[in-house]
Structures are given as structure tokens and as C-alpha cells.
């Protein structure tokens, strides 16, 4: 990375940073303020609305009307915390499964030469081209009577969790990263008598921490954003995840907009917090997703 110079402002496309006259600063403030209001404003309104008294239960107000926690109390009576718990169960076990499956598969793909590796890679890439929406309807049929096992996963947590396990994106990210680990590192451990699992666990995985960060943050937001899968799998309201429960909350006449906002806030916070905490990993994952590197 080149050290910063005062010339750097010249290197942005518009060179806005070099304009520092009073008028320019004012215009820039308005511009940036506008961008924040347009994109973060609605979400901020959810935060404010969730904690404020709602004079009109059908109206979403832009302005707060006094602080209250009532919305969260009523939300609790409506089972919102149960939905939140369901969401955490799905995201917790789903992410765990997804990461374990991905690192194992990547280890084989990145560190082993074997017949059929190219085909497996092709399968992984092909599944990435297959939108999950396309298989949603047939998946519901497969889930209702899993071949060989003949169990019905509709209406179970497993039905919401297992399909999340194999995700091409995290396998590809991990594989790319593991390929870069120098062979000498692995060789040294093997000379010392380390077995396959030991090499995997104590040599390769610790080196791959950055990639693990990327796939965990990305996996978390991906699973948290799941909608169609829990919608298909959940049968009873007690199994709903928070995102799909929002719709039933809205349809519930007894529930005012404040409660809906409280639930919406709880549904948006986890992934937003994950993003804010791990922004660096997230941005890296984004560039992998889009540019492939």
C-alpha cells in the first residue's frame, strides 16, 4: 500500500475531497446527510418507533412520541421472543453445520489430489448457479419424505437447518484460501507424525482464520435472511422464525404498529450488528462474491 499523500484527493473520480471552500463543505454535508437519511433513515425510524408510544396504531410516524418499553412487552405476549429464539436456533446450528461441512470439503479440495476432484468442484460451482428459489417447491416434496431415511422433515427444525449445510460460496472461499497455505507447513507436521485430522485441525485451520471470519459473517447474514425455506418448512406458528412471523404479526388486528416495529427491530439487529462488528471480513467476502477474488 502506497503511503497517503496530499495528492490523494486528486485520485478519486470526482476529487470531492480537495474542495474545501465553505460552500463546498455545506453542499457536501447536505449530500452526505441526504445519503444517510435515504438509506439508514427508514431503519433508524424502526429503532425510534419501537421505543416510542404510538398514537395511531396503523400509522408509521417519522417522529417519536415519548419513550416506552410497552411495545416489547406486548411483543413478548405475542410470542416474538419465541420466534427470535427459533431464529437463533436455526442460525446457530445452521451456521455451525455449514462451517464444519465447508472446511472439511475445502480441505479435501484444496490439499488433496485425487481422481474426481475436478468433478466435485464442478458440482459445487453448479449448485451456486442454481437459485434456491428454483428448487424450493421440489425441495418441499423431498423434505416431506426424505429418500432412503423416509422421515418427514416438514415442521421440524432439522428441515430448516440441514438444507443450509452445503453452501457453495463458503466452500469456494475456504478452498481458495487453503490452497495458499504452503506445503512445507503441512510437511513439517507430518514428519512429526501428525495424522490427517491433526494436520487439518492444528496446522491448516489456524492459518485459515481470516477465511473462517469471512465465511462465518457471510453465512450468518445469509442464514438470517432466509425466508422461503422456513416459510415452506414451518407448519405451526411455534416453529416460525422471526422474519416469517412478521407477516402474521402484521395481519394480527390486536397488534399495533409499535409491536410490529419492535419485532422488526429485533429481526434486523443481529445481522446489522454482525456487519458492524466484522465489516472488514464482510467487505472481503463481498469482493470475493462479485469479483471472484
Amino acid at each position, binding site marked *: 500500500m502506497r503511503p497517503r499523500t496530499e495528492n490523494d484527493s486528486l485520485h478519486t473520480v470526482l476529487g470531492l475531497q480537495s474542495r474545501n471552500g465553505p460552500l463546498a463543505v455545506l453542499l457536501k454535508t447536505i449530500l452526505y446527510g441526504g*445519503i444517510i437519511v435515504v*438509506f439508514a433513515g427508514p431503519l433508524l425510524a424502526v429503532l425510534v418507533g419501537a421505543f416510542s408510544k404510538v398514537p395511531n396504531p396503523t*400509522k408509521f410516524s417519522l417522529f417519536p412520541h415519548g419513550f416506552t418499553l410497552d411495545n416489547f412487552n406486548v411483543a413478548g405476549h405475542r410470542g416474538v421472543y419465541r420466534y427470535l429464539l427459533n431464529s437463533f436456533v436455526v442460525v446457530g446450528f445452521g451456521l455451525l453445520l455449514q462451517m464444519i461441512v465447508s472446511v472439511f470439503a475445502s480441505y479435501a479440495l484444496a490439499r488433496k489430489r485425487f481422481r474426481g476432484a475436478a468433478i466435485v468442484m464442478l458440482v459445487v460451482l453448479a449448485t451456486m448457479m442454481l437459485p434456491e428459489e428454483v428448487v424450493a417447491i421440489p425441495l418441499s416434496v423431498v423434505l416431506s419424505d426424505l429418500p432412503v431415511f423416509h422421515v418427514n422433515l416438514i415442521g421440524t427444525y432439522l428441515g430448516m437447518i440441514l438444507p443450509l449445510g452445503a453452501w457453495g460460496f463458503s466452500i469456494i472461499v475456504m478452498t481458495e484460501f487453503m490452497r495458499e497455505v504452503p506445503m512445507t507447513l503441512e510437511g513439517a507436521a507430518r*514428519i512429526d507424525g501428525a495424522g490427517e485430522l491433526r494436520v487439518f485441525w492444528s496446522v491448516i485451520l489456524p492459518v485459515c482464520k481470516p477465511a473462517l471470519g469471512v465465511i462465518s459473517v457471510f453465512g450468518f447474514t445469509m442464514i438470517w435472511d432466509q425466508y422461503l425455506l422456513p416459510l415452506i418448512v414451518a407448519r405451526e406458528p411455534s416453529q416460525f422464525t*422471526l422474519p416469517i412471523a412478521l407477516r402474521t404479526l402484521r395481519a394480527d388486528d390486536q397488534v399495533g404498529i409499535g409491536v410490529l416495529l419492535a419485532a422488526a427491530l429485533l429481526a434486523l439487529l443481529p445481522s446489522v450488528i454482525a456487519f458492524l462488528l466484522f465489516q472488514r471480513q464482510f467487505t472481503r467476502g463481498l469482493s470475493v462474491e462479485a*469479483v471472484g477474488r
Partner: protein
Amino acid sequence: MTNLTGSRQPPPYGQAQRRAAIPAQRGPAHSREPTVQQPPVPRFQRGSRFRHRRLQPFVPWLFLAPALVLFLYFKILPMLQGVQMSFYEVRPYLGDRYVGWSNYVEATTQPLFTKAIFQTIVLAIGTTVGSIVIGFLLAILVEGQARHLVLVRTAAFLPVVTTMAVVAEVWRMLYYPDGSGALNTIIGWLGFGPQPFLASEHQALGSVMLVGIWRGAPYDMMIFLAGLATVDRNLYESAAVDGAVRWRRFVHVTLPALRPVITILCLLAALRGLRSFTEVFLLTNGAPNGSTEVVMTLIYKLGLEQGKLGVAAAGSMVLFAATAVVTLAVHAWRRQAALR
């Protein structure tokens, strides 16, 4: 078996075995306990946990097994199931009846479907173009290292990490058709009358599109910023030395460098648009009067609410064909562009 620290213990079985095979180079073949003086033999032998060489070929497959099983059950089998179902009239308890291509005929010619397909394409193109244009404008506005720019970028990116269900619910409230609705209040300040938004047949699809753009533009912005960061700064400098105006520098240096990024963003956004479900399902679910019905919401209704699984499967396959064609076309185009 932990032996990461020293070499005093006997070498693992595999190693001893290999030595036995080449005794001439490696001292006494039968010596299983090397003395302390004898240094460990540096060779990249296979691990001791999977001792038998015969098992070696299976090691990668053991590591791959969980992924392969899950892919098989939740990607490959459903896909095959979908292909099969699309040729049958699925009748629970009565047994499925083979109907040939008639599901496909229904999924491509029935007015319900043709309307949904048309609206899906409009929605996909609208959100793609809209989010790329706005994403690009955002990117060049917030480009730079200053701390306040980082804050603006982070704030603008929040819609992308917000779960779509919340995005849709929030926009439903913002779009409240009455004059007292949030967006209508703002429009009122600007001197316009209240708009019906989602309640109107003419505005609903555009309103759904706007939500897609609102969530897609910051994503594109981030990718554009990553692309801008890779533009060679020396080119900027030499352009400045040559006295190129900012606009010309933009056209001749920045845009060509961003071309691959634009291509990939078009692809990603188009795919996102074609498969859009959650936002439409929550904002309008096809209403008013089918004016926002897209392929996925229609498939969901047919398959899971009306039990016409065969037609729904055929519709899914048509959607898959569309996404595959778009993906392959863009890839082919990229390859050609790379050759040029």
C-alpha cells in the same frame, strides 16, 4: 499419538514400512527404533491416523462426504424431483399422472404466467439498471479515505445486511397510501398530492422496484468502490500530466477499468431480480389485481397453496432456464471481451 514436539519416539508405521521398501538408502530396514543421534527422515509421508496405504484414496472422500450428502439431498435430488414432477399432474393419494409437456405449456402460455413472466422481466431490468446507476453515483460520491466517508458508506450499506422481511415490512409502512403515510408526508412537503403506491395497479410494480433498488444500490456501491480501488493510480497521474480533464480521464481511464465489475454486477442483479420472491410476497403478494405478480410468487401460490405441484415445478424449471441462459450468456460475453 501426539508427536508434534520431538522425534524421539519411533516413527509412525507408514514411515517404517516405506523404509523397508528401500533399505539401501535408509539404513537397517528392521530398525523400528532409531537412536537419538539419528535425525528424523524428512519426507512427506502420509499421516499415521490413516495408516494403510490402501485407505489413502478414500481420505479426500471422507472429508467431502458431509458436503456431498447435503448437496445430493438438498440440491441435486430436489432438482431431479422438479424435473420429474414437471411432467406429471401431482395428485396426492391418487398417484401421479403423466401429462407430458402440458405443464410447460401452461407455465409459458397461460395469461397468468405470461403476465407474471413479463412483470418479472420488467422488475429484473428495472432493479438492475436502477441499482447499478445509483450504486455507481453513490460510489463516486463517497469514494475516498476520509473518516466521515467511511461513516457514510457504512450507513448507506445497512439496507443490504437488513433481512429482506424487515425491509419489506418497513417499506409497506412507508408506502401507506393515505396522506398521513410517511412517504406521502414527505411528498406533501414537496407540494405533491398523496400517492397510492402499492394500492394502485399503475404504481405498485414501480414501488416494488424502488425497494429493490434501495436495497441493491448500496451493494453495487460497495463493489464499485472495490473496483475503483483497483484502478491504477499511476494512470490517473499520467492523465493529469497530459492535462486530461476530469471527464476525459473518467471516460478513458476509469470506465474501461470498471467494465468487468459492471458486467458482473449486471449478472448478479439480473439474477436477483429474476428470482425475487420475498419482497413481492410481503409488499403486495401480487396485488392489486395481479399487477405485481412475479414468477416466484405465482409458483408459490400454485405449488403450496393450491397444490398444483406439477405446474409449479414446470414454472420453476422455466425460471431455472432463464437464470441459466442469463448466466451463460454473460459468461460467454465476458470471455469474448477478455479475448479482445
